[in-house]
């Protein structure tokens, strides 16, 4: 699964990366690389069943735990 995921990301990078380098779009390349690395890391953690920060849990904690906003 990890090999499949890595291969998928490599294909995606090969599809977009060379074009950005050719056009000398360095700013776009940095943004693309950072976001792609984050996406790969999150996907990898997900495959390895390692818990990642969950926006739902965090929002719930913020709304109901910290701000104590509730209809109940």
């Amino acid at each position: 699964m990890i090999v499949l995921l890595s291969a998928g990301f490599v294909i995606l990078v090969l599809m977009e990366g060379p074009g950005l380098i050719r056009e000398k779009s360095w700013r776009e390349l940095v943004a693309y690389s950072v976001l792609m690395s984050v996406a790969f890391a999150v996907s990898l953690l997900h495959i390895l069943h390692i818990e990642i920060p969950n926006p739902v849990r965090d929002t719930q904690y913020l709304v109901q735990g910290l701000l104590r906003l509730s209809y109940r």
Partner: protein
Amino acid sequence: MKLEKGEITNSQLTILIVSFLQGMILTVNFTYALTRQGSWIAAATGFVISIPIACLHTFIAKRFPGQNLIQINDAVFGRYLGKIFSACYIWFFFQLVIHYMYFFNSFWITYIMPETPRVAFLFMLAFVCAMAVRKGLEVIARCSLFFAVMVAAMVVFVTALLTGEMNPSNLLPMADFSAGTFIQSVHIAVSIFFCDIVVFLMIFPYTTDKLKITKPVLTGMGLSALQLVVVALRDAAVLGLRLPIVTLVSFAVSRLINIANILTRLDILIAITLLITFFIKITVFYYVTVLSIAQVLKLRSYLPLVVPIGALCIAIASNLYESDMAQVYAGAYVWPFNAVVYEVLLPLVTFVVIGVRKLPKKEGAPAK
């Protein structure tokens, strides 16, 4: 530099808003557990309350014609505070993408193909949405015309076929809920059904007539609200007191259609409706997320961000909730409070600052 080269007409904007909001005919389930047969009253009240909020959004856009939300934030709050506001909005749009993706995915896995791996539908959905996002706003708007008509036709068709199953007495008791429950239901209607049109603050600058956007917005909202009320009334008239115990009501009622044992199993029409409405909804949020990030980072194009954001969405959306009931709970008890910050509170702060600073400054006016 303008990130989006395309432009849509104001009538296309109306249709896009109708198509974008039509998703609420399925998310209306969040209110059924609370206001039951009176959900249509909550939906209609939510629509009325949403009108001034939508006018607030269009007021802000009309004050800065040709500028999107990120540029408006920079102009109103300054370079640094404006970026913080923009980051909040981007986070909100991103959250909406993953939530709707989860909803879409869980529907197909729960009702249509239960043996399918969780990420399979997400891959396909993200791929199609990414294609639409890469094509740009004009293509999304052109698709929405076809989709809006199709969904409206399905609502009429399913409602007409269900007339035999409807019982007017099922609509009673119409107001068997407390004031607090009603307020909560209206809150859900405002924050989940209507006011996510705050996202259009990123789209208004790409319309042909930037100063006449209030009418398309209100018309779009009105047409969607009409469909919502029809669906809520239909579901209540068919199911009555059984309304709160069904997970996806429209889907359940469409299974009751049986015309002479020939027209049966029309639940697939609801599946298609969900597919279409959520495609437009997710595409718009996805498009706005990448456009906003590109604007904040001052990129020349938003296209390089489409794939990474899509991959990130798939990874997060595949395991967002522990169960479907957890999403129903979050939709009823958590999300309305979260959404109101971005849909009402932040635009209200922007409105106040515009008023206090008398923005936008006339050209040639002395800088303070």
